[in-house]
């Protein structure tokens, strides 16, 4: 039970991070100077109260802890559900009719594998832009240049498109699910909460996809 609350709370932290991250990404429309300054300011955030990169490392530790707790809870609940279903062989029910359930959404039954796709993407994404170990289109010291170099290549854009759609679906069900797990749903609110979850998921997905596509089609850079 504590697992689900942990799932919801860490999920909320990660959604808030995504919104901040999306805001940062949109700085790319301000050009190289604005974007690079923003990236540089992240390192100076909290100075002189905090040491150089202090705030950044606090955020990184919180995010890493959130991801680990979120994933641990997910795997534990996944294993528990697997046992609880008591499927014989591969399938729980032998009937091939109504395999998609009565009303469940695509987002709700792709939560687990979708989550795995997202975590693999995060590793790839960090190697790409943070450490620059993967540098399609050429490495650079300028964050702006890294972004522009990467997103001029079609398969990089495609990989980010797939990942962002996975994130969007994950958020669509995840945000709604968190409100229910944290006890905030009521019959009269249920529709509204679902609309809000869809809206936040859509805004985040589109917000993250606008910069790569703008670069790819030559509107930026």
């Amino acid at each position: 039970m504590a697992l689900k609350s942990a799932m919801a709370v860490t999920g909320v932290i990660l959604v808030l991070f995504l919104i901040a991250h999306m805001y940062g990404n949109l700085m790319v429309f301000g050009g190289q100077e604005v974007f690079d300054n923003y990236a540089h300011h992240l390192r100076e955030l909290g100075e002189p109260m905090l040491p150089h990169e202090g705030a950044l490392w606090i955020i990184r530790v919180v995010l890493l802890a959130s991801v680990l707790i979120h994933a641990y809870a997910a795997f534990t609940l996944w294993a528990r559900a697997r046992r609880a279903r008591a499927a014989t062989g591969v399938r729980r029910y032998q009937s091939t009719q109504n395999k998609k359930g009565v009303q469940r959404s695509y987002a709700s039954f792709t939560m687990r594998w979708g989550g795995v796709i997202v975590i693999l993407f995060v590793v790839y994404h960090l190697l790409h832009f943070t450490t620059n170990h993967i540098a399609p289109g050429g490495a650079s010291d300028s964050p702006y240049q890294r972004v522009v170099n990467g997103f001029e290549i079609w398969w990089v854009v495609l990989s980010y498109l797939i990942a962002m759609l996975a994130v969007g679906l994950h958020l669509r069900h995840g945000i709604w699910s968190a409100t229910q797990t944290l006890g905030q749903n009521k019959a009269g609110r249920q529709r509204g909460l679902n609309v809000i979850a869809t809206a936040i998921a859509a805004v985040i997905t589109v917000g993250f996809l606008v910069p790569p596509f703008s670069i790819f089609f030559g509107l930026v850079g």
Partner: protein
Amino acid sequence: MNITLRVWRQKGKDDEGRMVSYQVEDVSQDMSFLEMLDVLNEKLTVAGEDPIAFDHDCREGICGACGVVINGIAHGPEVTTTCQLHMRSFKDGDTIDVEPWRAKAFPVIKDLVVDRGSLDRIIQAGGYISAPTGTAPDAHAVPVPKTDADRAFDAATCIGCGACVAACPNASGMLFTAAKVTHLGMLPQGQPERAARVVKMVNQHDEEDFGGCTNIGECAAVCPKGIPLDTISQLNKDLLGSLASGKM
């Protein structure tokens, strides 16, 4: 109408079990699903075969004894209990798959009969109020707001059939547990044990090997009594409040 039934046959809890096909002819549209099984069972008995075992009692949709998965949906295509499902919901020539509730917490006893004792043990863990018995007090001695009474009654209609568990992709018993928690939690008589109740019932739920709720909503969609999904939210709110206040 003539139909083909594919039924899960399993001799006992240690038997592996398998789907077996039967032809059922001259089925009337006005038969209930269970009456159709009765007809088939009479034929099987006359032929010297073992009839299909299935649970049933009132056949009025109020006891919660019957319940099978029909064509992959708990209680079949209509939102009602299996006994209140009629053959008019099917077409001539249909193939109908009939399987037992499938969950670790509901071991199959025979054919379509499962042991739902795990639900009883959740109730025993806290789904009650402790009150001195004796003469019933006047019904209007303790005022209850109408909205609270309505919500309590709506939740109290849960008949414990187990369809929520059978339909849940995680085989979670949260809707059942939430219905009991909501039913008692909305009424003044349920208040003294409210904080302890939710913790005990959820602990028992987890011990019985039910899965965790991921808010997919299949449970509420198949519930013959229409227990709303937001009761699970109310359970979670009570649970978090109880854990935070330490009043367990």
